[in-house]
């Protein structure tokens, strides 16, 4: 967003008179997605998106209106519609908007390597084609794809209380997947999951995920798992690698701690939570080794920012410390409703959706075990890598997760590769079986651009940093084929 496009308060301060509070959030995002599939370059897909969300508090009510027209007339019309919604529904409103905070933040945020040079489109295609060709190692490889999505975004928040925040982002999503078919079965192996290696920044992200050379490596693993035996069944230990840990954290800690779920907003769609307000401060969520932080300040992580979309300043806080539940994931509005401390996590996925409580970056703090120590400590178990299947009940308790690749562990040694490694459990008990937490060397910073929630629905960027971890006595099983 060029500076010339920045809103100036005198131009719009007259647009929403006689309201208690208003804000305008302008979002501009451009992206380009390049893909090579089976050594054929697919047509590039570019995207340019710009629009505004107007939010108004008036007469105790709340209303919003979103428009793609960011001209002064378009913004004025949106503020008028939002004001009308606030007034029309004030008597039926769940929340008295007169009690809500009226933020006036000022400042700027920028992603790392925001303006660092980036290779040309032609050079990107050369890299993707090289990895694609390296993946074609066997006739049993039936499909494969390499891709790169680059995104730039600028979010500007202006409030009637004098607030103005400008946040500039750069995201990079490398992707690589290979599918093998043999003996009546099909298995897919990916580079840390579909869009798992997503971060803020520039080309330095590629080296963190060893993208160069990944085509052959991932293809070899796809061939390995398609002919591997199924994961055995039974109670045993599991060593979850970071690209499965992030899913475990996301589904069974992140979502149940969202304060809007706890307050009931999501019960018609995304669900409720087994966590209730009285649990905070005393509830043992996990073992002593469990330390979970909300951290939107880790620069390279996908959902880092300076302020959330309601204008709350981003800061790192503990949600769970030494296994004890401390605070929920709740933005300023949810905090006011619940009378609880929370986090700066009120976020919207674009200009056309209102902010709700989201995860941002939710991390498991590293411990001190090496990977070798964790393997050596397991008498019978399975190491599991890269989530491939996820399902959990609407209270975020009974879960079942599957991974792309497993390795048996017997008597402290890594053994054969197995396919369809899966496990099931109950969130409220599972985290108490956390027996070891890997050190910083085992940690990866990953995430997903596709966390879904809300009515109307939103799909948002979420970051997770996690080390490898060991859980004991887990119900493990494999596939049918």
């Amino acid at each position, binding site marked *: 967003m060029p500076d010339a496009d920045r809103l100036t308060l005198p131009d719009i301060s007259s647009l929403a008179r006689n309201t208690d509070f208003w804000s305008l959030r302008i979002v501009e995002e451009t992206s380009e997605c390049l893909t090579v599939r089976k050594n054929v*370059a697919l047509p590039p897909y570019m*995207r340019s*998106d710009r629009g505004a969300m107007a939010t108004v508090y008036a007469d105790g009510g709340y209303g*919003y209106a979103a428009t793609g027209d960011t001209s002064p007339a378009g913004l004025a019309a949106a503020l008028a519609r939002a004001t009308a919604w606030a007034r029309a*529904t004030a008597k039926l409103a769940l929340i008295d908007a007169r009690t809500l905070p009226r933020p006036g933040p000022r400042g700027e945020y920028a992603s790392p390597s925001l303006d660092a040079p980036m290779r040309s489109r032609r050079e990107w295609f050369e890299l993707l084609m090289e990895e694609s060709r390296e993946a074609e190692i066997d006739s049993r490889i039936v499909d494969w794809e390499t891709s790169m999505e680059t995104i730039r975004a600028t979010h500007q928040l202006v409030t009637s209380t004098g607030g103005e925040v400008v946040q500039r982002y750069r995201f990079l999503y490398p992707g690589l997947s290979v599918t093998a078919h043999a003996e009546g079965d*099909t298995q897919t192996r990916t580079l840390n999951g579909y869009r798992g290696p997503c971060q803020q920044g520039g080309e330095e992200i590629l080296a963190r995920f060893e993208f160069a050379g990944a085509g052959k490596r991932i293809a070899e693993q796809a061939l390995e798992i398609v002919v591997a035996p199924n994961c055995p069944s039974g109670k045993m230990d599991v060593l979850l690698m970071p690209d499965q840990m992030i899913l475990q954290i996301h589904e069974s800690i992140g979502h149940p701690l969202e304060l809007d779920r706890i307050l009931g907003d999501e019960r018609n769609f995304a669900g409720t939570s087994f966590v209730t307000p009285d649990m905070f401060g005393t509830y043992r969520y996990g073992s002593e080794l469990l330390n979970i932080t909300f951290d939107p300040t880790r620069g390279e992580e996908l959902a880092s920012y300076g302020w959330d979309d309601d204008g709350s300043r981003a800061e790192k806080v503990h949600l769970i410390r030494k296994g004890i539940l401390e605070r929920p994931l709740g933005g300023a509005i949810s905090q006011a409703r619940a009378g609880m401390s929370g986090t700066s996590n009120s976020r919207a996925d674009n200009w056309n959706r209102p902010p709700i409580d989201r995860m941002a970056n939710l991390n498991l703090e590293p411990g001190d075990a090496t990977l070798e120590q964790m393997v050596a400590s397991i008498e019978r178990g399975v190491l599991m890598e890269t989530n491939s299947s996820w399902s959990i009940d609407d209270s975020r308790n009974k879960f*079942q997760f599957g991974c792309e690749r497993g390795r048996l562990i017997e008597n402290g040694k890594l053994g054969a590769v197995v396919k*369809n490694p899966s496990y099931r459990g109950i969130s409220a008990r599972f985290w108490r079986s956390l027996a070891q937490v890997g050190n910083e060397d085992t940690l990866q910073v990953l995430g997903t651009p596709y966390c879904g929630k809300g009515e109307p629905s939103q799909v948002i960027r979420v970051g997770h940093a996690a080390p490898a971890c060991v859980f004991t006595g887990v119900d493990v099983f494999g596939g049918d084929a």
Partner: protein
Amino acid sequence: MMAPRESTAGTMETYFYELAGALDGLVVAGETYLASFSAEASDFVRMNRGRVRQPGSVTQRYIDIELVRGARHATHRLSLTGRPDADRTALASSVASLRATLPDLADDPHLLYANDVHSSREVRGSSLPPAEAVIAAALEAADGLDLVGIYAAGPVYRGFANSLGQRNWHEVTSFSLQWSLYHRADKAVKTAYSGLEWVESEFAAKMAGARARLALLGRPARSLTPGRYRAYLTPSAMEEVAEMLCWGGFSGRALETRQSCLFRLREGAVALNPAVSFIENTADGIAPAFQDEGFTRPRGVPLVERGRMVGSLISPRTAREFELTANGANASESPESLDMAPGELRADDALAALDTGLYIGNLWYLNFSDRPACRVTGMTRFASFWVENGNIVAPVDVMRFDDSVFRMFGEQLVGLTAERELVASTDTYRSRSVSSMRLPGAVVRDMAFTL
């Protein structure tokens, strides 16, 4: 009194065709453009605890411009403002940018777009009552109850144009009210009322039905132990299972590369029950009858007949890659109007046919636990009950199932209901969906529950 919503009724079609006219003037000799238009003017009112939580409006317009020269092509999606001068300028900039991109690209051996011109126009639905009036009526009807839900309403637009002169327009003005009445904790009844015309008596009947089922949730809940249970899946529960099949199951590309959950069905290694038939029924759905490369969709594409796979959804790109014939599918090759044939079981007799077992009102959060085996796991949700001798006995605590659709709709299928429901998609990710499914209920002899 509401301020008027940004008015789009009757003007969006004209606006899109004006933009198409501008594109006609922007391409030069040797270039072709394909333009897909997607827009809506929606009211969204979110409710919780029988009150309004978040009310608002969203007006959005997007256009995808694909510029083709020879066998090279690229696509640019851009948001539009609704202001003609600004949008014409944006289109010119977009075409120039795409033109500058093409020399960087290799020829695409799988490019295919429509060369025959088939224009069409479909406009369904008209005016709806003001959203605030619907909400006031809904909350009044639920007075004293813990209601949570969403009302989404307004026109949704889809359009296509190309430089050959083809013009397609699809406009649906519809509403969807989805609400849950909560008894306590996770015990609730979920109901949906959607359509093109709000009929107060139809809404009242649905709310009365929801209240009646809510009363059943007041009985002490039963916790089932893992095991195999006879089950009845309502059409709402069937939607979740069908959505799993739609996740690449009917995709021509996924079948050719054996990534589809149905590739063993296609190869004849397994068969479904002869009562099971699926077609992509565009004629009776609410999705457009055209796709993004300008091809017209057939009225119906048979997919499964009497338990055997007989067809798939083939996009133009897949057609070129695997030397198949395209049949109107978009790039995702996912059904937008899936139709499952009815059975012979009267819906009123479903509980009797279940006899003793699990009545599953809704399923939730399904995923594959072994895709080639079409093995699916997921949770029961909302109003699900334990039934004995054809009578509802008690609500059940949520249970996880993990079973193969090949079994459930194969040897274990007892019967499908003769009555089907049109289940309109309530998906609002990025935009309001125009997909739908027409589905019966199903009685399954035994279904594996694991947690």
